């Protein structure tokens, strides 16, 4: 199981990093999602992997339990990474609609001089 989890984390991370380096909005979003899955699995495994052990301490019976804290951390991390990915999608969509292409890098020639002269609203 250790090997399976470790290689899953490694593969997800490698794929995520590769996709982020593509410099196009859609692969980057996928890459960030894969990275956050990788980190969630990784966080989950930081409390040591235990099968069939609930993360609850039993007061009356001496049964095995797994570390509850990583599960709480993962829960927070999942919520945050979902929210952040949603924000990223909105950003990418906005940037795509404004610029008509989804490249992440900004070239010198498409920097107009209008940084702070846009009108009201928007």
């Amino acid at each position: 199981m250790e090997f399976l989890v470790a290689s899953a984390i490694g593969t997800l991370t490698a794929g995520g990093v590769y996709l982020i380096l593509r410099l196009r909005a859609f692969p980057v979003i996928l890459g960030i999602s894969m990275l956050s899955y990788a980190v969630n699995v990784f966080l989950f495994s930081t409390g040591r992997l235990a099968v069939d052990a609930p993360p609850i301490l039993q007061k009356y019976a001496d049964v095995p339990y797994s570390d509850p804290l990583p599960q709480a951390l993962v829960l927070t991390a999942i919520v945050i990474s979902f929210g952040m990915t949603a924000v990223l999608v909105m950003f990418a969509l906005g940037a795509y609609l404004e610029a008509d292409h989804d490249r992440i890098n900004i070239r010198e020639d498409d920097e107009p001089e209008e940084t702070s002269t846009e009108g009201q609203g928007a």
Partner: protein
Amino acid sequence: MNHWIIAPVILPALLAPLLAFVMRHDIVLARVASSVGTVVLAGIAIGLTALEAGGGTQVYFLGDWPAPFGIVLVLDRLSAIMVLLTSLLSLLVLWHAIATGWDNRGRHFHALFQFQLMGINGAFLTGDAFNLFVFFEVLLIASYGLMIHGGGRVRLRAGLQYVVMNLAGSTLFLFALGTLYATTGTLNIADLAVKVQAMPSDDVALVRVAAILLMIVFAIKAALFPVQFWLPGTYANAPAPVAALFAIMTKVGAYSIIRIYTVVFGPDVTATQGIVTEWLMPAAVVTLFAGAIGVLGAKRLMPLLAFSVVGSMGTLMLAVSAFTPYALSTALYYLLHSTFAAAALFLLADLVVSQRGNDALTAQPPVLQNGFFAALFFAGAIGMAGMPPLSGFLGKLMVMDGVRDQSWMVLAWTAILLGSLVTIVGFARAGSMLFWKSTSMSAEVTGNEVETEKRIGALQVVPTLAALGMLAILSIFAGPASRYLEATADQLFDNSDYVSAVLSRAGEGQE
């Protein structure tokens, strides 16, 4: 337990949803509420700093849970001074945004602003590494919104880069925390300090990995080489008042480095001995030069200021990387100074840009109040580049004095002096192009059709003047300020106070 400790987090956290849901259609109401909230926050911050002036570490146990199990907020001198700095800066930025109408150019400026304050204050006050991550995310998600406030093509695309960069950084942060938790079994900063200190030597490798990973994460936030590249694009394209507020965000990274690498991975901890200075010092030197060269090469005013922020972070981290109490106190002085200097310049740049219509560093016909803004710009530039009489000079002098005993003293002094020289040249070039060359062009086109309505009023200049005034106050009261900061640094390096204050109630939970 002093309940005021949590007020800097709770107050903006309660105000922001109100602003977003109740006051979103009434800009006047939102302005009043946001201003009142920020003023109250400043009052609380002053109170907390006064409370800490006597020394001692105050701990707030959320839900009254004892420390390693529950979440704690810790108020010591460092967090008090950082919260005070945040609230003063936010007052200036908020005034500027309201006076120039920036808050009305997009929706939800005030709500995002308050969320940002909540995140920053929380990051400064928290005593738990995972909570540090959570507050980082809170301040980041607010900063994403502020970054694209007002919209526009380039701003959105620069914002996209900023978000991607920070999401990658957040993932790395979680990896670092996971590694740390796997080896120590805790994420409470005080508990970590105890556990890392007592770490058996065969587990040290993973702790060192975690320490370096954390360093990379904080370096991204603090814009240190080689992960500084996101900053110029972001700050240069953010709305100017937001860029001024962001001046504190790089300091959140610096604060985290200072906090974690003195309390947890202190210089006398055998597990991680040496790794921080080894990496931080060269990175700081390169950052300093990267900033200085960027200032020299910038073609627009906003990137120029953004690069000067990078350079100032280099100077700051150079002092931090020495990891002696005295050097750290000089770093803190420079931190206070560089925050206000950057804010003053960004606010001023906004006024100049709104008069000129663009921020290109080319000669254009002079605008109204040309001389006045030239004077302000040079005052700001003097502060940023570190020339007398403003606090930049004292700050750099102190930093140089602080690293005097290090073996790499020559390198550090060369870097600071050379970096300052290049920065001065860059600022002088920009200033003469903006303000002096333009006067010679006045003969041809003095288009007065746009200029008549663009006179900058007194109210709009006040925040800039106040930020410059803070630099003057910092230099006049350099003595008391550096004494307070020396006590702060001593408190940081002697972490027994911090640890015992947080863990004092460790045994109480079972009763």
